[in-house]
């Protein structure tokens, strides 16, 4: 099997079994890319992860693009990215198709009433996890509060808020 085909299937498998966010992919990537295929060494994975954190974009796509590039240039990154999104594309597509049929069912509605508060908790948890590393001095607290007010009260565009706080970061750090 050619390298590209193997790359596609390895990343399709990673995309299929990783639950909940790009970070969940990391142990799988280590297993597949480092141990089983030996395409990269462990330190390179750490570098890739650092760069993924330092650049915008979903981490899963960043990881796939970077690993793919290391293995076979632009074509490799294209194939790896396609691989990692394929399972989601197929599965979510099927679920999305049926979900909106069943959503009106009374039983489904009671289930969703229990699930929605959990979703709120999930979102707050994600914020807490990022805050643990991202909010650690007075200026970061100030940026946090200012951004919060800017979006909640002034209705500023979220993208604008990210850009402004990024510029502030470049100046003060």
């Amino acid at each position, binding site marked *: 099997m050619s390298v590209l085909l193997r790359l596609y299937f390895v990343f399709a498998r990673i*995309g299929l079994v990783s*639950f*909940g*966010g*790009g970070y969940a*992919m990391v142990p799988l990537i280590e297993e597949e890319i480092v141990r089983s295929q030996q395409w990269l060494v462990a330190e390179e994975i750490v570098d890739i992860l650092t*760069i993924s954190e*330092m*650049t*915008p974009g*979903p981490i*899963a*796509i960043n990881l796939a*693009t970077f690993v793919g*590039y*290391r293995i076979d240039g632009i074509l490799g*990154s294209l194939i790896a990215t396609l691989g990692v999104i394929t*399972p*989601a*594309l197929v*599965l*979510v597509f099927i*679920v*999305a*198709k049926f979900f909106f049929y069943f*959503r*009106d069912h009374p039983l489904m509605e*009671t289930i969703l*009433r*229990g*699930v*929605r*508060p959990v*979703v*709120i*908790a*999930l*979102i*707050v*948890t*994600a*914020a807490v996890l*990022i*805050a643990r590393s*991202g*909010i650690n001095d007075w200026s*970061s*607290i100030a*940026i946090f509060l200012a*951004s919060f007010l800017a*979006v909640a009260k002034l209705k500023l565009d*979220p993208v604008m*808020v990210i850009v402004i*706080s*990024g*510029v*502030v*970061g*470049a100046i003060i*750090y």
Partner: protein
Amino acid sequence: MAVKELQESQRLEFSWLLLLKMFLLFFKIGAFTIGGGFAMLPLIQDAFTIKNQWLTEEEFVDIIAIVQSMPGTIAINTSVFVGYKVLGVPGVIVSVLGAALPSFIIISIIAYFFSQFRDLAIMESVLKGARPAVVALILMPAFRIGKRVIKTKRHIIFVVVSLSILVFGILHPVVVIVAGGLLGMFFFRNEEIE
């Protein structure tokens, strides 16, 4: 037992202009997703439920619940789901393409110039400034959803209990979602909203 009619957004009439608009929206969202798939949610909410009424708030919450319970990453799953809901199959194609393209371009460039980018201090400072803002932004959907969903004490208990379980990493998120749904069948069965 009165089960309130669910609010559902209308499927939009297909047009190439709309497709282009959706691609650009997702491109912008992909370019400003900093620090994982959850950072995407405030941007999607802003673009799809506030600036354009292409999704209702309830649909947005339900989509998050489902994509979290499925394999695959939040960013890609959410893009597929939202794309499908708003514009069907062509919507899926442009949403995924739009969301993936910015990272694809940026990472390819970085991979090419790897050694020089490694010690680019300015990038680190920019992101250090952006991260607290991302925390604030991620909280926005939680508040907006909370306003609509939290109506009784039971809802508050659900939020507090699942939040404690999740923050301390006691159970996997998927387990908490499924448990929430099962408990919902008992606790919210006869409840009337509004």
